[in-house]
């Protein structure tokens, strides 16, 4: 199976125009506390993101970084406070907080929790027939049956007879998530937004789900947004990675570059903190050194720090970081970062390897001593 994406060749522009874009999108929520004071949660601030056909973009960040809010903005759940969501270049209009049904026809969202996103009272069949009726006017039992069968086969829920009349509680987590994906596919969308689609699944079946998503991208040319906090799974599935921190996008670019050679201090921290058994068994001490004790925490989005939102935790913080938000700087090869280090000419300091992490040039990935077997199916990206 040769489904691994074409190498994200540096410098070449995306094959075609983006299907779905967020242009400088900001979303603020007004919350009222129990005592009646109002405050504004700045969930997403100036986010720009584009999803081209047949590519997988990963949105990586911690909880509360605004990645789910951005996904819901893209899905048309709420209207942005400012900025635009564009579907094939056309701004999406909202009517009384709800987009037209046409938007849902092109953009579908897969939720994190497969246990929560299926109504426990409806059978699998109902879930898949509804979008078929709604969007394709499919009537007639025979035709519905055929289409339902086709969809379940595409998400590998076979034999179909075994699953089609089941209730969600009779299915495992992985099977439920397949139903959710089949339901989204029934609409025949152009964009699939996956909001941590594997994080609630058992470890051993996560890869199958990622492989399924990869296949859908390749076969259908879907544009895929993969939201995750797990940078390793993002690397496995995606072409590009965008990193969010405290509601802002801090870095983006082709995945291998971003992981191997982070251009933002937060990305570096994130990569260093991610578990990596490849490094683990060897230098545990280095990874969990003394300064790992106090890495700080993300700020409150009600009252975020002035300037760069990462500056209170940043080992490189300068005076300018505390007062002024950095601009988005293009670094070539499709990479960009928002960090004063680049504007101040101190970017070189980022390359200094962090504790226990040695950046490897993307082209020179060496087979580690403990490489697992099954090299036959090995496919290298890059």
């Amino acid at each position: 199976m040769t489904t691994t994406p074409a190498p994200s060749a540096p410098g070449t522009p995306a094959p075609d125009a983006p299907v779905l874009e967020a242009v400088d999108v900001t979303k603020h929520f007004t919350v009222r506390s129990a005592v009646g004071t109002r405050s504004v949660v700045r969930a997403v601030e100036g986010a720009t993101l584009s999803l081209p056909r047949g590519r997988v973009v990963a949105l990586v960040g911690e909880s509360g970084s605004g990645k789910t809010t951005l996904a819901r903005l893209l899905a048309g759940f709420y209207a942005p406070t400012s900025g635009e969501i564009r579907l094939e270049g056309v701004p999406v209009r909202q009517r009384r907080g709800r987009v037209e049904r046409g938007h849902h026809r092109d953009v579908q969202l897969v939720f994190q929790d497969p246990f929560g996103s299926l109504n426990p009272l409806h059978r699998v069949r109902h879930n898949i027939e509804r979008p078929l009726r709604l969007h394709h006017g499919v009537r007639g039992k025979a035709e519905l049956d055929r289409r339902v069968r086709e969809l379940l086969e595409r998400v590998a829920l076979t034999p179909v007879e075994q699953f089609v009349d089941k209730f969600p509680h009779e299915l495992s987590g992985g099977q439920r998530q397949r139903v959710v994906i089949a339901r989204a596919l029934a609409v025949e969308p152009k964009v699939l937004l996956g909001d941590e689609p594997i994080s609630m699944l058992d470890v051993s079946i996560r890869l199958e789900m990622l492989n399924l998503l990869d296949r859908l991208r390749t076969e259908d040319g879907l544009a895929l947004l993969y939201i995750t906090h797990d940078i390793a799974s993002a690397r496995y599935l995606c072409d590009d990675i965008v990193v969010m921190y405290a509601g802002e996008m801090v870095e983006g670019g082709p995945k291998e570059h971003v992981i191997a050679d982070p251009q933002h201090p937060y990305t570096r921290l994130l990569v260093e903190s991610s578990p990596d058994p490849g490094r683990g068994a060897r230098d545990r001490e280095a990874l969990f050194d003394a300064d790992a004790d106090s890495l700080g925490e993300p700020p409150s989005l009600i009252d975020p720090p002035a300037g760069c939102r990462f500056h209170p935790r940043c080992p490189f913080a300068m005076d300018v970081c505390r007062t002024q938000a950095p601009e988005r700087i293009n670094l070539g090869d499709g990479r960009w970062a928002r960090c004063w280090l680049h504007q101040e000419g101190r970017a070189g300091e980022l390359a200094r390897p962090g504790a226990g992490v040695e950046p490897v040039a993307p082209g020179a990935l060496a087979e580690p001593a403990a490489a697992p077997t099954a090299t036959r199916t090995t496919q290298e990206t890059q």
Partner: protein
Amino acid sequence: MSAVRRDLLRGWKVRAGLSVLAFFVLLALFGPWLTASVPGLDPRANDLTAIGLPPSAEHWLGTTQFGQDVLAQTIEGTRGSLFVGFLSAVIGTALAILVGLPAGYFGGRTDSWLNFLSNLFIVMPVLPLILIVAGYMQGTGLWVIALIIGFFGWSGGARTIRAQAMSVSNRDFVLAMRTLGEPHHRLLFHEVLPHLTGWIAAMFLQGVIGGVMAEAGLAFLGISDSGAISWGTMIQAAQQQSAVLRGMWWWFVPPGLCIALVATAATLVNFGVDELSNPKLRTVRRSVVRRTRDRAGSAGSAGSADRAGSTDRADGVVGQSPVGSDA
């Protein structure tokens, strides 16, 4: 769903409650026909030869001060009381859903208005209002009583429904179906409402109890249809004739007991519904725990017999009996 029904019927509380309710419903439906077909059991006939008699072979539950058969009256009263109870519960529940569901689902301004409405009804002095309205509509039948009770008794339920609808509406599957482009009415009635059935059932049963009680209470205060017979009117008549002072317990105990029975039965069914929606309320029967421990003791040795090496251990376990003696 059938599994749900099976689970529901498994508990003794639900079964006992439903049996009692079913008995009264049947009595309400067929009782009057029964009394009519047995000569001498006319609830309205005044037998001047038998005034205020205690229970006897002829009059099983005795007679009233007016020479009416108490058994026949109680049976006839079942119809009246349950009619009011059920009709007011239907009206109250329907209003509660009508107000609570959209409030919880749509939120925002819709919620503010509907919530205002139900709050208004909550703070309204209901009893004086009922007295006024009932006085205004004097002499009308039991169904007016039921209407009044239902109309003034939905607000608490609406708040419950609103809270539940709000929580269900924010669950992922409703958002997911919304993303599919499902219209509001489908989301309301196919996704959200079915999840509230437990609450609605509980509310309805509560409404039945409330209706029966309220009818009795209103009758006691003199607000009722003079021609109709219900448990409430029976008690009221007994009170007016000082049945307590005269020691005519057979006049007011049967209707009182019936009211208590219906209320208990509905409450028992409610317990069952609660346990179903919240499995934590189910208690593990001690006998089952003990059985498991006992069986584990013997199964431990049997299961390991084919596996050399662990037999010794398992035997040791059986020997010392892992079952703690129960407190």
